[in-house]
């Protein structure tokens, strides 16, 4: 119960952050990626803002054995720079550049009643199912 409320709270703060920073606006994201055109460096400042908090907090949280409410920390166990990481990153980037959306702003956009969010969520989930059918079906 407690962890569910924390998840809700964390999501609300995330959604407000995406709104205030206007990262919920896909054209602002496209302008960041448009370095030879209407370049808008705001996205870098969003990352600097997020990392200036999270770099400090994560360093401090890493010292803990267990989280305050949850059973264990779910850190990624992967450490190798492999082909799926790079190819996946490049494929993601193409989709990001075509649409102006990454998953966070897509979901938050539902709060603006954006029709694009509905379309994007369906397409993203289709991408999940396609990937899982191709590469994870033996698990």
């Amino acid at each position, binding site marked *: 119960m407690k962890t569910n409320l924390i*998840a809700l709270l*964390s999501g609300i703060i*995330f959604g407000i952050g995406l709104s205030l920073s206007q990262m*919920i606006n896909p054209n602002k994201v496209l302008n960041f990626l448009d370095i030879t055109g209407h370049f808008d460096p705001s996205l870098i400042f969003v990352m600097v803002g997020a990392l200036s908090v999270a770099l400090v907090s994560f360093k401090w949280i890493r010292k803990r054995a267990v989280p305050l409410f949850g059973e264990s920390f779910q850190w990624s166990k992967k450490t190798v720079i492999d082909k799926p990481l790079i190819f996946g990153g490049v494929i993601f980037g193409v989709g990001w550049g075509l649409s102006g959306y990454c998953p966070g702003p897509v979901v938050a956009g539902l709060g603006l009643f954006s029709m694009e969010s509905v379309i*994007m969520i369906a397409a993203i989930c289709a991408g999940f199912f396609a990937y899982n059918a191709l590469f994870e079906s033996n698990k």
Partner: protein
Amino acid sequence: MRTLHTLGETILENFTPISALAGGALIGISVTVLLLFNGRIAGVSGILNGLFFAPKNDRLWRLLFLVGLVLGALLFNMGVPDFNVPRQNYPLPLLVIGGFLVGFGARMANGCISGHGVCGLANLSLRSLVATGAFMLSGMLTVYVIRHVLELAA
């Protein structure tokens, strides 16, 4: 000089450093809360994917995080109306193809901007640095082609 001046004006016209930093700090607080209390990484693509593929008893918190994400945007929009307005008339094929590639690529790379670009970098992960670099280089090249070569979108 003229070109430089025009470039400067173009940047200033769109650039919002203060709200970007403040909004970013909130995102940093959000991922901190989820990690400190629940031990979870706030990567939106992983959370959304798990809604369908995680064990049944590991799904409710995911749904609540995503509901929170929507609520946060909804509440902000009630407080500050018209600060963000939904985009209209963007080419549908770019959304459909783009969305599919975002979902597929995020699974293959095991994360998206929030998982790799915020949480992973904060955790000093080399994998996340490589992924974030790949997202940005590939995204910039794609936007160059879409906007300046094919001119499919403004």
